[in-house]
Each structure stands twice: as structure tokens, then as C-alpha cells.
């Protein structure tokens, strides 16, 4: 019986807490909701985005003379929870706009709810084309796989002078599959040849069979748009087997672990990316970088930069719309043109996919070195 009394008293205390601390929000403030994976498999990315949004909020804490309040809800990196979180933000917190989610599949669960309620929502990093396709209120701050794949092909043809490309795809990741498909189409259109396509699965450790297959065909470029762990292993094994072909990959490589896992083998690896701290061109970007690095004592990364851009994009759209009316803000967002954000000058293209420069980064002396920015 004792345990029951104990459990009961705690439950009552919790209940009392929830009722006592009900939202005592001032009527004047504008609420912006965030649904991010603060726990679960994507927690690291969610936390970086949250940091970026907080810094952006610190730089521009007010809007139309009213204070902005951020409301964060965790999604556990889970789709059912992401849908619940979006619904909670709209119905219970009554937010004017939403930032999130980080993973495409979770964003696909949240976006239709916001669409029905007419709440503008913008994802920092959901690159799956389906996320914004055919929607009025869904946006994103990153470029899509479509654009990244095309730019990779353009860079491969024009800068690397590649003619015969071999492609290695992690088929368990929608991101890798989409990127590879867009790359191959564009590479062929620009007169290149795809001489081999081979598939792997996330978590694979041994790529020697695939590498030997490539070696026999003598490619002059290896396009492997996969995540950092597979990239590092691939580079190591390719160098061990004597395959010296340059490796081109996507933004999934931009993680410090690539360097620690890959060591000297990843030297010279090139990838397309959203952001590099030396590629900053805008005034807002420089201010953001300074504030971020001062408050967190670490280098600004792509996730935090894209998180900041979500906030700035919403901020400028609301200012232009002169209020928080969902339809007007969505329209202002869709009409965003040449907005000087952190990750470059952003123009909203068709299907609410930003058109902006793609950063090219090369691993040089164990560091991510900025090469150039390619405007599509």
C-alpha cells in the first residue's frame, strides 16, 4: 500500500504543477514553435539547430515591436511523435509559425498538419523533395538533393574534368539515393559517362568487392554521396587497394568524425555542402558567426547556420507581411528574393526550394578547406 500512496502523491504534485504554471503568456508576444529531435537518433543535429535558432533569436529578439518567444517541443526523432508535436504547437501553444523538423521523414509527418491549419513551417535540413512538393505553407532553408546533385555534376565536369564516373550509393538512405540519381542524370546531360553503379547499405563495413569492381573499369571520378562513416571507410579501403580516383561526395560528409575515422585516407576528398564558415559573404552571417562562436566556444557548423536562417527567413517574411497572418507570411516567404542570410543569398524557387550557392569543400591537411561557391 505504501508505494501507492507515494506514487499517488507524486502524481498529484505533478498535476498541480501543470495547472499552476499554465501559460501566462503576454498577449503582445509572437510565438514561434520548434519541433526538433532533442533526443533519439537525430538528437545531435536537433541540438545544433536549436543552438542556431537561439543565437538568431538573440540577434533579433523583436518583431514589429513585439517580443518573439520560442517554444521548443521534442520529437524523439520519431514520426508519430513529430506529428503530435506539430499538432501540440498549433493547437495548444497557438504558435504563429513553426521551425523544424530536421529529418525529412519526420517533417513529412508534421507538414500536412500545419498545411491544414494554415501555419507557415520551415525546415532547416529536410532535403527530400517530397517535403515541400505541392504545399502552400511548407518551406525549407536548405537546398534540395536535386540542386546539390546537379551542382556536383557541374563541378565534376567543369572543375575536375571528369569523364568516366563510378557511383556508389547507400540505398538505405533516401538522401543518398536521390542525390546519386540527380547527379547521374546531370552528369550524362553534360556529356559524361556513368560507367558503374553499385549499392551498399548503411552500416556496411567492407567495400573491397565494390572497389575492386571499380578498379577494373578505370573511372576518373568516384561519386559516393553517402554519410561520413561509410565515406571514411570507403576512402581507407580504396587507398589500401590502390584505387587513386578522386572521391566526390555530398554534405553528409561534413562532420568532424570523417577526419578522425578517415585519417590520411580522406585527404583530398571533395564534397558539396550547405555552409563553410569562410564562405560567409553577408553582414548578417558575420554577425551571426561572431555571436555563435562567442557563446558556444566552438566553430559554427552547417546545422546551426541553417537553423539561424530559418529564423531570419521567418522574421523577414513576417516583417514584410506586417503581421502573423499565416497566408500572408507564407506568401512573403515564397516571394523571398536575394535575402542575405547566413548560408548565402537566398531566393525561394519553385516548390519553396531555396536557390542559393553550393559550397565546395576539400579535405586538406586534416581540415575542411573552403574551395569555392558555385551558383546554380
Amino acid at each position, binding site marked *: 500500500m505504501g508505494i501507492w500512496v507515494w506514487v499517488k502523491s507524486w502524481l498529484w504534485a505533478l498535476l498541480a504543477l501543470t495547472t499552476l504554471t499554465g501559460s501566462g503568456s503576454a498577449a503582445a508576444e509572437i510565438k514561434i514553435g520548434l519541433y526538433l529531435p532533442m533526443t533519439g537518433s537525430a538528437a545531435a543535429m536537433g541540438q545544433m539547430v536549436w543552438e542556431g535558432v537561439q543565437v538568431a533569436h538573440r540577434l533579433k529578439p523583436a518583431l514589429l515591436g513585439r517580443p518573439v518567444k520560442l517554444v521548443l*517541443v521534442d520529437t524523439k526523432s520519431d514520426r508519430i511523435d513529430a*506529428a*503530435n508535436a506539430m499538432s*501540440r504547437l*498549433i*493547437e495548444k501553444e497557438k504558435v504563429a509559425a513553426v521551425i523544424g523538423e530536421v529529418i525529412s521523414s519526420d517533417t513529412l*509527418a508534421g507538414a500536412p498538419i500545419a498545411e491544414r491549419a494554415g501555419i507557415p513551417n520551415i525546415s532547416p535540413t529536410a532535403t527530400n523533395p517530397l517535403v515541400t512538393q505541392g504545399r502552400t505553407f511548407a518551406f525549407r532553408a536548405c537546398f534540395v538533393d536535386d540542386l546539390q546533385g546537379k551542382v556536383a555534376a557541374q563541378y565534376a565536369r567543369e572543375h575536375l574534368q571528369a569523364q568516366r564516373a563510378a557511383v556508389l550509393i547507400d*540505398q538505405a538512405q*533516401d538522401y543518398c539515393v536521390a542525390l546519386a540519381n540527380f547527379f547521374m542524370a546531370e552528369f550524362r546531360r553534360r556529356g559524361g559517362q556513368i560507367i558503374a553503379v553499385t549499392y551498399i547499405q548503411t552500416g556496411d563495413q567492407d567495400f573491397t568487392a565494390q572497389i575492386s569492381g571499380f578498379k577494373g573499369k578505370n573511372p576518373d571520378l568516384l561519386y559516393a554521396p553517402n554519410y561520413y562513416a561509410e565515406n571514411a571507410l570507403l576512402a581507407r579501403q580504396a587507398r589500401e587497394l590502390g584505387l587513386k580516383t578522386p572521391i566526390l561526395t555530398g554534405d553528409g560528409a561534413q562532420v568532424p568524425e570523417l577526419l578522425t575515422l578517415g585519417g590520411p585516407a580522406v585527404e583530398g576528398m571533395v564534397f558539396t555542402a550547405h555552409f563553410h564558415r569562410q564562405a560567409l559573404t553577408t553582414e548578417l552571417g558575420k554577425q551571426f558567426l561572431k555571436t555563435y562562436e562567442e557563446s558556444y566556444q566552438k566553430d559554427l557548423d552547417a546545422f546551426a547556420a541553417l537553423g539561424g536562417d530559418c529564423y531570419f527567413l521567418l522574421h523577414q517574411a513576417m516583417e514584410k507581411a506586417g503581421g502573423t497572418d499565416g497566408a500572408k507570411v507564407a506568401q512573403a516567404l515564397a516571394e523571398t528574393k536575394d535575402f542575405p542570410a547566413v548560408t548565402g543569398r537566398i531566393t525561394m524557387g519553385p516548390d519553396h526550394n531555396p536557390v542559393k550557392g553550393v559550397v565546395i569543400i576539400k579535405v586538406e591537411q586534416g581540415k575542411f578547406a573552403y574551395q569555392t561557391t558555385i551558383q546554380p
Partner: protein
Amino acid sequence: MKNRLLTLGAVAGLLLLLWGAQRFADEYQVRLLNTAAIFITLALGYHLINGVCGQLHLGPNAFIALGAYTAALLTLTPAEKSRIFFLEPLIWPFSQLTLPFAAALCCGGLVAAGFAFLTGFPVFRVRGDYLAIVTLGFGEVVRVLANNWQGLTNGPLGLKGLAPHTTLWWSWGVAVAALLVITALTRSGYGRAMQAIREDEIAARAMGVDVFRHLMLAYLLSAFFLGVGGGLLAHLVTTISPTLFTFFLTFNLLIIIVVGGLGSATGAVLAALLFTVGGEWLRVVEEPHVLLGFSYPGIPGLRMVIFSLALLLVIIYFRRGLCGGREFTWEGLGRRLRRLKGRIPFGARPQR
């Protein structure tokens, strides 16, 4: 007879509550109620094979995935399909076929049951840990197929833009149907035979119970309800992809039926409610609060800590789950009410 009337009354009461919720609750509350009903359906389906028959089946995610994909592919319009399948077109006849939601749900359930029929033969050749491994394997097979069969499932890109067909009537209707069918089955001669198999298979066989037939029956029915639940889930979340149907989903269902008490349908229903609604309610501990001048910043992830502590407490203090294998009955409720009445000193004592 009296019990039947009481059950009928309870269903009518639930309908009234749902009608109220439909009219007055906001979308967030409706969504929670829908999620709860779907998890009740899934937990009950899983309970039939795991709780009633005592077979440690670890592949319900396969049946949920089959139901979800079948129903989703059948309700999407051809125009929507051609837009989603932009990497590789959807294979005929799914590319042209569109069915009403009810028919699609049934097909989802039937496809899941069909898969259960095919896998039932190898699965029930083994028992115990081996059965667990075999079913786990089939669960993975379905997930990997969904990931790689680009022309049918759109691979890792998944399906999106399903119409939100799952209303309170659908989700709770199916949940109530699952509850009625499964309790009726458990109380019938078939159910008694299944419980006999759970307690001692050799003894049951000696008494003339056809073990394979009974297990297969439970497996098929369980798969059907899991499939229908999957279809409902797909049309609630409105997007599915293979990552939704990992072993984690099985794991959550296993937690639900173990916390509820293995072998108790009542426990499965209660634990499913607790898992879905309680999980959302616990979000308050993650929000920032100002209480009596103290400000609390809110810690993301804290609710999972509390949730796991609650699980630990349940396992320590209620070793056989919340219901401990017992069931809710109207007689039990009556006894309890009478006892409660007896405690009130000035109330009329029940007459014997």
C-alpha cells in the same frame, strides 16, 4: 444477458464520448485519441499471439508495415502516385487502382493475414527462443523489402500525401471491434485451447488439442488486426517509410503488453492508453516553468527518463504487469463497487 447489456451500454457510452470529442476537442486532442485507439488495436492484436497463446512473436512490425503499405497504395490517387514515384514508377496494377478507405483497410488486414498464413508453417515448427528469432527475421525481411523494392514502396523515400482518413469513428470502431472479437475468442473453446497451449503444450496435446491449428488461427487473426491497425496508422500520420516499421515498433508493443500484464486484454488496453496519452502528458516536465518565483528551464528528454523510471517501478512492484493476467469483468466491477459501498459507514449495507 445482463453482461451483454452492460457491454452494449459501455459501447454506447463510448460512442457518446466520441461524439463529444468530435465536436468539442481540438485537433491535437483528437490526434491523441486516434493514436491511443490505434495502439489499443495493435496491442490487442499482439496480445492474442503473445499473451493468450504464450508464443514470443517478435515480428508484429512486419504485419503493421504490410497493412500500412497495402492500405496506403490503395487509397492514393493515380495522380498523387505518379508525383511521389519520381525516381522509379509504381508497378501496375497499383499505379491505376484506387479503393475507398474501408476496402483498403480490409485489404491491408488480409494481406497481412496472407503473409501470416505463408510464414505460419515455418514459424510454428519451432518454439520459444527459436520462434522469437524466426519471427524477428520475418520482421526484418519485410522492412528490408520495403526499403529496396523501389517500384512498389518507393524505397527509402517513402509515401506521402495520404488523405487523413483516420477519424475517431474509424480508429475507435476498429479498437472496439478488436476488443470484442478478441475477448469473445479468448472465452470460447478455441481461446481455452490456446491458453492450455500457453500453460503446457504437451498436456494440451495429450488432451486432444490440435496445437498447430489453434496457433495458426491466433496468428492469422493477430496479423489481420495488426494489418488494419497499420492501415489506420498510415492514414493518421499521412506518410510512411520503412524507418517507421523497425524493431522499435515491436519493442514498444512488447513494452505495452508486458506492462499491462501478459495475457490480459484489459492490461493491453490500459497500458496502450498510458503509453500514448501519458507520454504526451509528460511533456510538461520538458517545458520551461516559473513556479513561485523559481524558474525551471525545461529539459528535453526528461519525460523519457520519467517514463523509464515508471517502467522500472512497474516491473519491481507489479511483477506480472498492471493487471497481472486478470481481466476486467462486470462481475468484478460489481464486487468492487459493493466493497466500496461497504466501507461507507452510514450507507445502506448490501443485502444478501
